[in-house]
């Protein structure tokens, strides 16, 4: 293993330990069983040809977050979360209104990347360059958690206000 690869895996180890220490990950919770492959690769196998995901949980909302690692691409990973909108906004006009509300939020706030996928689920996406540093990862994860919580709250109220105005 090259020293660069070693440093990449050291970064993942640091990130995972931070998630545990900061209370974003509970190894005793059921969702932790999804992480075995990821943990084995980061701590033992260190296979750079793999890509996999690590699930952890928001402290503010209790929803799942995912760390997406493509170990082949050694210069960043992504943290994502999605919000299933339950088909509520699937009509074309609702989708356009929702897109406009999301766009307004993205203009107003420093937020992670926000987008609606083709099923009209809302995604939050943040890229983190490697190697990471303890404090910046703490900042990153807290920023992400707070952003997802506040953007979700504001999106609902903005959407409802928008619909009311249009009626």
């Amino acid at each position, binding site marked *: 293993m090259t020293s660069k690869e070693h440093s990449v895996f050291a970064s993942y180890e640091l990130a995972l330990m931070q998630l545990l220490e900061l209370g974003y990950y509970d190894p005793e919770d059921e969702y932790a069983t999804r992480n075995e492959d990821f943990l084995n690769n980061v701590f033992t196998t260190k296979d750079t040809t793999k890509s996999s995901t690590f699930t952890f949980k928001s402290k503010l909302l209790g929803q799942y977050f995912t760390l997406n690692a493509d170990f082949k*691409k050694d*210069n*960043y990973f*992504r943290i994502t979360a999605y919000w299933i909108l339950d088909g509520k906004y699937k009509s074309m006009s609702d989708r*356009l209104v929702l*897109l*406009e509300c*999301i*766009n307004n939020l*993205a*203009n107003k706030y*420093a*937020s*992670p*990347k*926000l*987008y*609606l*996928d083709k099923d009209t689920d809302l*995604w939050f*996406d943040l*890229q*983190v*360059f*490697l*190697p*990471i*540093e303890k*404090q*910046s*990862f703490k*900042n*990153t994860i807290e*920023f992400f958690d707070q952003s997802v919580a506040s953007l979700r709250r504001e999106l609902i109220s903005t959407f409802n206000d928008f619909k009311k105005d249009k009626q």
Partner: protein
Amino acid sequence: MSNALAKLMPKKSSGDSVEKQHIIALRELFVDWIRECKELSLDPSREEQNKEIVDKLKTPELDKLEEFLVVYDSISDTRMLCFLDSDLPFVKFVVNYSNPYGNNKDDLTKSNSITVANKFNCTINFLFSCASDEDGDLRFSYRAMLPLKDQEVFKSMSKRIAMELNRIPQLIAEYM
């Protein structure tokens, strides 16, 4: 410093000030890295304005988002605004493109521009977050959380930024 003097010295009033001092040091370092960077540089056509901002970086004054450095990417020949506010835990790069549907800022072109922005955001591994403003212009932004561990991180990030800036015009055409 003696113990007595240390006790008498004025203390920082809150944790925030310490944090702010820390961010001031980090953003100075960040500017040094831009200067040494192969892909990015401080825009020479904005030398004076940039110098003013760089001088301000040494103080806690730079709190307002309106003030920014102009950073030039030589690969894509693009100028980016670089916000280094001391009250934020990140630095933000922003680049603007005019409404791809033209100067006619009606609701339809604005709405189409929002759809293009969403397509950019759906593009997995595309670095910049895209939003359409009130004129339908597209604003691409990327936030780098501080502190970056070392210059190596900055180098891989700046290389990536340059690569993505190069892709934007082609992707706009594709997503329209």
